[in-house]
């Protein structure tokens, strides 16, 4: 098949080049006795190992780890890295993921020994710089969300959600209430309902209205005194800002429930509108989205939470404290929080992520952050307009007229008229050197394409992407098989996921 690669038109962007040689794992390389590590001498009087560690507690056979020289190790992983598409290779409009530029300054400052080699249990008096950084970041995030209290501890968005729902539980229990249900719109990200179950609540779905917002009727129908919380994303995963947000907040609060803000889409509204002002009680941030922590191929991230006064007594500890003294502020960690839900993880959270996001906020300031959201929304609407113009009929906008920082197209007409699905379009985009948008999410849109360009892309890139989509659609009109057979230029072509799940091979055979 790939023999046809050269006859198949590729846009000038060009596919990102990748290793196309057969996959060989590190366990299949090297030879017995090879090594990169050279162990220091113990340098202490040698004791009988079996006396120090009795045989019955000992391992019988060494773990079969790789045996490679350092040059082999380096080449293996450098070549592997070339099998990845990345943000520095090209456009990455993965909806809901906010794939914005990752400044290298952040890697530099995070690597400073004073941050990178600081032990989490260091005496706070000897970690004042780290605690001040966390304090400053909390204050900045609080201002951005419009809520008074921030805790940085959660490790990612879903972890923040779990914290939020557990806080809701603690809040209700403190008032002697045992509510059983949590509402989530059908546009919600999968982590929302999953979190609800983990926190011991029942999930109740709320519908979406024709404008892409929460269906108020449906909401009224479901919000009662058994409802502990409504989890909302605003703008939601359709890229639609819910114009009824004030009414929604009123309904939820009147029912005595809390309103939870999934902050994955905060990039749309920084400096423009604040969840706290919208009436949300609890917010999580995705520092690895809005605040540019690199995604690392699936983490690390951080999911700090902001809460209102009534929720504050229950937040996870430790909490960073700041005490004014004659010789300036002194920072500490407070573990003495009787009403706290407790810890969600070890230590103080993903500090290395905090450093990067703090550097980002200090680089941009208020103006810069507003520009981020304004440009993110501008870029999204421009790309939407270009796509409307070029392929509006095949890929119509699913809801509304305009969008915030991202938008959802439906591939249904394309499927019907051209015989290629959203998946095929996505795979064909790979040959054009673009990362495809998020596909088949949100679930309520048939053949969904969720497109988020972010603010750090240029107009030229948006134009090139729109033209690539147009080229694929035009190509499909001629010959749908090209898209159906795509991709052609990648290290591997379409993979058999069913086979992988049917007979799972999830580790190298010995």
């Amino acid at each position, binding site marked *: 098949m790939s023999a046809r690669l050269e006859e198949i038109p590729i846009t000038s962007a060009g596919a990102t080049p990748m290793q196309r040689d057969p*996959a060989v794992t590190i366990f299949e390389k090297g030879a017995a006795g090879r090594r990169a590590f050279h162990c220091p001498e113990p340098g202490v009087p040698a004791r009988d190992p079996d006396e120090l560690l009795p045989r019955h507690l000992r391992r019988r056979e*060494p773990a079969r*780890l790789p045996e490679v020289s350092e040059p082999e190790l380096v080449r293996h992983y450098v070549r592997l890295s070339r099998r990845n598409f990345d943000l520095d290779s090209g456009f990455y409009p993965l909806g809901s993921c906010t794939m914005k530029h990752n400044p290298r300054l952040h890697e530099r400052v995070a690597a400073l020994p004073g941050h990178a080699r600081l032990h989490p249990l260091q005496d706070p008096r000897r970690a004042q710089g780290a605690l001040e950084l966390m304090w400053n970041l909390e204050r900045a995030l609080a201002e951005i969300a419009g809520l008074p209290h921030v805790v940085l501890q959660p490790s990612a968005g879903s972890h923040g959600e779990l914290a939020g729902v557990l806080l809701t539980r603690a809040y209700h229990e403190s008032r002697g209430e045992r509510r059983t249900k949590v509402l989530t719109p059908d546009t919600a990200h999968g982590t929302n309902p999953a979190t609800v179950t*983990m926190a011991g609540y029942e999930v109740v779905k709320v519908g979406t209205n024709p404008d892409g917002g929460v269906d108020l009727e449906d909401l009224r129908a479901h919000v009662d005194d058994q409802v502990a919380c409504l989890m909302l994303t605003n703008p939601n995963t359709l890229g639609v800002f819910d114009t009824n947000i004030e009414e929604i907040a009123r309904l939820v609060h009147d029912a005595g429930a809390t309103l939870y803000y999934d902050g994955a889409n905060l990039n749309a509204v920084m400096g423009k509108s604040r969840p706290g002002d919208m009436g949300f009680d609890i917010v999580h941030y995705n520092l690895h989205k809005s605040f540019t922590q690199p995604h690392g191929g699936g*983490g*690390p991230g951080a999911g700090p939470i902001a809460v209102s006064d009534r929720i504050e007594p229950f937040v996870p500890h430790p909490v960073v404290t700041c005490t004014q003294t004659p010789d300036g502020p002194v920072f500490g960690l407070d573990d003495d929080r009787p009403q706290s839900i407790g810890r969600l993880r*070890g230590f103080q959270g993903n500090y290395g992520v905090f450093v990067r996001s703090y550097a980002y906020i200090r680089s941009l300031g208020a103006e*810069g952050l507003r520009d981020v959201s304004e440009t993110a929304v501008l870029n999204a609407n421009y790309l939407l307009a270009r796509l409307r113009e070029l392929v509006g009929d095949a890929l119509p906008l699913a809801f509304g007229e305009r969008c915030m920082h991202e938008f959802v197209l439906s591939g249904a007409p394309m499927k019907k008229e051209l015989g290629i699905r959203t998946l095929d379009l996505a795979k064909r985009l790979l040959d054009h050197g673009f990362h495809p948008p998020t596909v088949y999410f949100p679930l309520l849109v048939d053949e969904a394409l969720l497109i988020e360009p972010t603010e750090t892309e240029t107009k030229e890139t948006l134009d090139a992407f729109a033209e690539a989509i147009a080229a694929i659609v035009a190509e499909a009109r001629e010959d749908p098989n090209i898209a159906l057979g795509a991709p052609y230029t*990648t290290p591997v072509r379409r993979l*058999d996921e069913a086979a992988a799940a049917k007979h799972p091979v999830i580790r190298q055979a010995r």
Partner: protein
Amino acid sequence: MSRYTATTPEDLQSMLAAIGVSSVEELFAAIPDGVRLRRDLDLPPGMPEQDVYEHLLSLARRNTCAEDEVTFLGAGMYDHYVPAVIDMLLGRSEFLTPYTPYQPEISQGGLQVMFEYQTAISELTALPVSNASVYEGPSAVGAAGYLAKLANGRRRFVVSRGLHPHSRETLRTLSHGYGTEVVEVPLRDGVTDQEAWAAAIDDETAAVFLQQPNFLGAVEDAHALAQAAKASGAVVVGSYDPIPLAILAPPGDCGVDVAVGEGQSLGNRLDFGGPSFGFFAATEAYLRRMPGRIAGETHDVDGRRGFVLTLQTREQHIRREKATSNICTAQALNALAGVVYLSWLGREGIVELAELLLQRTAYAREALCAVEGVAALHEQPVVREFAVQLDVGGLEGVRRVIDRCQDAGVNPGYALGRDLDEHPTGLLVAITEQRTREQIDRLAGMLGAAIAAERAGEREEVRA
């Protein structure tokens, strides 16, 4: 245009025209007036790159890091040497910047790394199933609890007090959510009290939790503890320190069903506590109950070997409220550091490293216990960390002793009293390959002096 945006005035005009609006403001019309922010955020103004660097450098300088003192601090994270190859590889855009590999054809690098990582963890734990990472250690313990809860629906967790305090507490926090109660089993002579352990386990026990080596550095008889639980049908969960695991009987050989642990010591920086990663391995029986991403091997339409995210029907984006976990973004980059580190150590190297720790830790334990005012807290075998008690009255005395040593450039370790009321004068001392004999001797000397000074101080008080 701010720091990282690129819209020139010309761009802006043509873009607004294409959209059909006259200002960016119009694009925010959907936001009701009542919730629009009509002022600037109250934040410090943006700074040029060089000033941000200076600021972050000045903050870094106000921390005493492992390069500024000789540190014996461990208690869950350890000052191991991170080889330079890891910086280089993690700094490569191709590993640093991609999202979770949703498009396998252009993510084979990351997916194969996951597959290799899973293999390495599986080898280390002698368990067939590993996922591609969870957040970190204590939350991995909580995740194991949720797995057990979903697996057998029982309502109680039996937990050794040998578990890291953060793990025990995280488990409590999450248990309160998914509705299980937690009972703790005390230690005796530094290890889990086997009688109390056996007595606490019954057919309402969803899972039992042990840590190896435990929080006091003692090597538990994991096999015995696991067997004691088998009959009850409870899920046996072990939280492991991966480096000692190089020479300790692996969970898979001891009857442990789910092995989790903190991965920081595998090639990750201390970073004041994160990001690192948690590993999560289990027996075949729990394959379809695992939390998080799992990479699997398959082939493409041309028959080429390739890797994909597999068994996704477990996960939140497919299964939503019925998912085995809510985890989405995990710690892929840190897990990469983990597998690179394990490959760098290699099959023989990791054993040499663990044996080195065994010897130096034994030496340090002896050297410290020979110090006036220092006594072993337990006599159990230890690999990389051990506990002593300081004859200085109480926790505050220990804190002052630590402080004195730190003022002299040596961080003697962790004051156990901060978490364990039963050991108010305990001190937990960790050894890595970066702590030399000379440094250990220096610690012994300083500790002796600091304790003497502390006692002198006490006597003063008594007189006064």
